[in-house]
């Protein structure tokens, strides 16, 4: 099955292509569902497909040789994965997993490369997305260095809320601990803090955003700038 008309396309990159280009790429896109926990890429393994998420959230995960494991960046309808594919390198530089189930349109890697080589509009959107992702990762690095766990949790929840339909985020404390690179009781405590302030409701396996504006205020400079940069990079493309 090919992709829908561009009007119905919810991946921001594909939706931003000029219509002629979109209509040529659409028949080459294949729809897939992405269940939670699905491994999309593994470090050092060949890239066979490139995913454009239309819902759900995926994570770029880094595991050190000592076994420390944490999230470096996340993506959803705003991007494509793996970012490595833009650089004509055929092996994945990271592990990439689905954290919140969703769906995507997929291009074969060879087809993706052909589009990169032959279509400037496609290449422009992909490189803009690569830059947007680099900005996000840079801000995550800063946040890990300077913000406390509750602020980082608020940032992470806001980033997920941006990428899921509705207000429920299906995530366990165990997953959140890996995402934030902390022990699980720190997640329990921080969720309790956010819940005590009325920003969220935390139930087993589900975090519901109750007051987004207040959560953003709580996160203050931990959230917002990369999102602003994304909007800037994706404006007036053609």
């Amino acid at each position, binding site marked *: 099955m090919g992709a829908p008309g561009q009007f119905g396309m919810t991946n921001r990159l594909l939706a931003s292509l000029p219509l002629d280009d979109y209509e040529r790429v659409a028949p080459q896109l294949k729809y897939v569902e992405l269940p939670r926990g699905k491994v999309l890429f593994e470090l050092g393994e060949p890239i066979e497909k490139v995913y454009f998420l239309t819902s759900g959230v995926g994570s770029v995960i880094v595991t050190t040789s000592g076994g420390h494991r944490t999230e470096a960046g996340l993506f959803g309808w705003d991007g494509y994965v793996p970012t490595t594919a833009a650089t004509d390198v055929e092996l994945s530089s990271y592990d990439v997993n689905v954290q919140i189930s969703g769906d995507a349109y997929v291009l074969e890697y060879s087809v993706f490369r052909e589009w990169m080589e032959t279509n400037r509009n496609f290449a422009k959107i992909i490189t803009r997305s690569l830059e947007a992702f680099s900005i996000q990762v840079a801000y995550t690095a800063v946040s890990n260095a300077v913000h*406390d*766990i509750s602020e980082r949790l608020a940032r992470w929840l806001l980033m997920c809320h941006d990428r899921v339909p509705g207000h429920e985020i299906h995530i*366990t*404390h*165990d997953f959140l601990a890996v995402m934030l690179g*902390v*022990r*699980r*009781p*720190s997640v*329990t*405590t921080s*969720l*309790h803090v956010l819940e*005590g302030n009325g920003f969220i409701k935390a*139930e*087993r*396996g589900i975090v519901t955003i109750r007051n987004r504006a207040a959560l953003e205020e709580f996160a203050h400079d931990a959230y917002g700038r990369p999102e602003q940069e994304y909007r800037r990079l994706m404006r007036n493309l053609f």
Partner: protein
Amino acid sequence: MSRYFFNIRRSGDTALDDEGEDFGNLEDAREHAVNSIRELIAAQIKVGAIVADEHMDICDDAGNTLFSVSFHDVVKDHLAK
């Protein structure tokens, strides 16, 4: 492997761990509790917050408290005599 739950209690208010985590024995669960408390205390000290008289209650899946660890005791263990 058994499942242990790490609830955090502070003057009547409890942050409940409703997921729990598996450990091979009680000693491993205790080590995890102490390491987690160190992380929580470090975060409080870093932002200049007072380390309150909190406790972590480690419970089994029937809800029985197996043991408790005091945050203040963990801090004291890190002070030179």
